[in-house]
């Protein structure tokens, strides 16, 4: 169950946005109450929703964050985009050492069920690799794909 929840959070993040309705109208009171309880100090809150999920984009203590909810008001995940220098030192060092010829096209931190994972997308001319870290110390390959050369 946990894995499927996290997968949904990732799907939401990487862009089902075209199917999201924008605005507060589609967001249930359960979700709103859950959000306000968890993020009482949130500012500049914007909502997107589908029939089953809602995503809040907001600023909390100067940091832009995203929170994902299911229809019951359950918090699925919280994410934020980061830059490489914000990675824990072991993760940063491994990227610099083993992927020095790649550029970083995406990097975010995701917190769900008391666990924090980091996801980084690295690209070169031939391939795109997504690495994931669940222990803040080592990366594992999450996905790898070759680029299509036209």
């Amino acid at each position, binding site marked *: 169950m946990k894995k499927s929840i996290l997968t949904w959070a990732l799907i939401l993040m990487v862009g089902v946005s075209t199917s999201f309705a924008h605005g507060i109208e589609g967001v249930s009171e359960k979700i709103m109450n859950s959000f306000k309880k968890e993020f009482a*100090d949130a500012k500049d809150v914007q909502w997107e929703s589908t029939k089953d999920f809602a995503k809040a984009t907001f600023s*909390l*203590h100067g*940091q832009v*964050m995203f929170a994902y909810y299911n229809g019951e008001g359950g918090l699925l995940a*919280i*994410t*934020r985009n*980061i830059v490489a*220098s*914000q990675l*824990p*030192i*072991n993760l*940063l*060092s491994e990227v*610099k050492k083993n992927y020095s010829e790649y550029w970083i096209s995406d990097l975010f*931190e995701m*917190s769900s069920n*008391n*666990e*924090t994972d980091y996801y980084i997308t690295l690209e070169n001319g031939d391939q795109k690799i997504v690495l994931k870290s669940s222990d*803040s*110390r080592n990366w594992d390959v999450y996905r790898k794909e070759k680029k299509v050369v036209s």
Partner: protein
Amino acid sequence: MKKLVLTLVMFASLFGAAIASDGSTKSTNVNYRVEAAFKKEFAGAKSVKWDLLRKENIYQAQFLYNNERLNAYFDSEGNLIATGRFVAIANLPLMLRKNIYERFNDYTIHEVVEYTTSNETSYLVVVENEKAKLVIQGYINGATSIFKKEKKNSAAKL
């Protein structure tokens, strides 16, 4: 207990001497095992300065690695015990940052140290208000505990 002693030692040393900026220097004799272990772990490190924390028999290296200023701690056998570095508040994992702002909302965050051992990464966060200075130890899952507390002398205030 050993973990607490090491954390205290690392914390004290990070807030102590500054890093050498004029090339490698040795303020203590480093045994070959420790030096070899350091070179293997941190190949390419620059501006390395060594100290021996005599009471704990721990070797401390202060250096530049991948453009980051780090401290690393080795035992006399050359085992890497921990690394530490100052980081920005923005480096705090999002749940930890959220919890610190909420639980210590009447304090100002001054410094953050990222502390990494073989088992875990934690953060030592120095916060202060007019009454006290705290060092909070926080973890990636957002858990916090007060590592050190120092009350300020309220009689000094007029």
